[in-house]
């Protein structure tokens, strides 16, 4: 508990992230390489979709990462509003562009996959539309952050948006169950009756972990910069800057 309390101080977090970053990068490279090679070359072709199904290895991880990032932002929003934790506000702000890029990637790769399988690039299907709404939520969040100059007001307003927008996550997840859609049902969330062969599943799980590690890596890099800017009047920032500019 003391460790977590200490980690909430910007200085301790900055120092801890310095040690964590190389490990996160190394793990990302390992998981991404296995996922990429396994997904593209080692897993067998699908009996219905042939090699076209290999888009799943970038589409599903990006979609799940997009949702996970938004959930992290909403949790950070609560921590910012209720407990006024500075680091939570910084994490929320640093996550937005990453989440938006994952959502855009999920929509683009889904569209590329849809063309040979459904015969169309886009359809106003429940899953696709709810993902598009998630992208608009991210864009709205980024716009809101850029228009409010006062840090406390900006954190408060964007926290509220992040928390309100979280209602879209269960809609995205259950859209394929609640509505009759072109999009296929859950593939890897059905742990009881998995609908994917192990040779196809392991690279997919590896890619999922790789996407989350990539998020953690970029998030830490961005948070470190924002911490330095917000804490620029502290002595420790001066010391770090002097060391790095020698």
């Amino acid at each position, binding site marked *: 508990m003391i460790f977590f309390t200490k980690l909430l101080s910007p200085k301790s977090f900055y120092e801890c992230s310095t040690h964590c970053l190389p490990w996160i990068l190394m793990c990302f490279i390992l998981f991404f390489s296995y996922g990429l090679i396994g997904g593209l070359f080692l897993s067998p072709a699908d009996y219905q979709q042939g090699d076209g199904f290999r*888009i799943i290895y970038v589409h599903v991880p990006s979609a799940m990462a997009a949702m996970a990032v938004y959930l992290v932002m909403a949790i950070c929003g609560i921590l910012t509003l209720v407990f006024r934790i500075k680091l939570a506000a910084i994490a929320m702000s640093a996550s937005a*562009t990453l989440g938006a890029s994952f959502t855009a990637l999920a929509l683009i*790769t889904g569209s590329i996959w849809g063309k040979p399988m459904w015969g169309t690039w886009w359809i106003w299907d429940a899953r696709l539309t709810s993902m598009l709404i998630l992208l608009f939520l991210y864009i709205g969040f980024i716009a809101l952050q850029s228009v409010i100059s006062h840090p406390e007001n900006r954190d408060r307003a964007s926290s509220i948006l992040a928390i309100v927008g979280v209602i879209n996550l269960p809609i995205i997840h259950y859209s394929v169950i609640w509505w009759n859609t072109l999009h296929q049902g859950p593939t890897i969330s059905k742990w009881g009756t998995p609908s994917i062969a192990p040779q196809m599943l392991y690279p997919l799980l590896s890619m999922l972990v790789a996407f989350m590690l990539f998020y953690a890596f970029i998030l830490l890099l961005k948070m470190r910069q924002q911490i330095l800017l917000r804490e620029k009047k502290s002595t420790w920032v001066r010391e770090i800057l002097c060391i790095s500019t020698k």
Partner: protein
Amino acid sequence: MHFHEIIYMGGFGAYVWPAYGITFFIFGLNILSALLQKRHTKKILQQFFKDENPS
């Protein structure tokens, strides 16, 4: 597996490879954005300390 088969992907190469290409592009953009932010922060902080302590 021949090179041609890898590129052709059973007729789906035109869809599979662009999807992976876009993934790499978006990953690259995120890395570039983080590196640019680092450079920008360094400049702002150097200016801040210079203004604060002109000597």
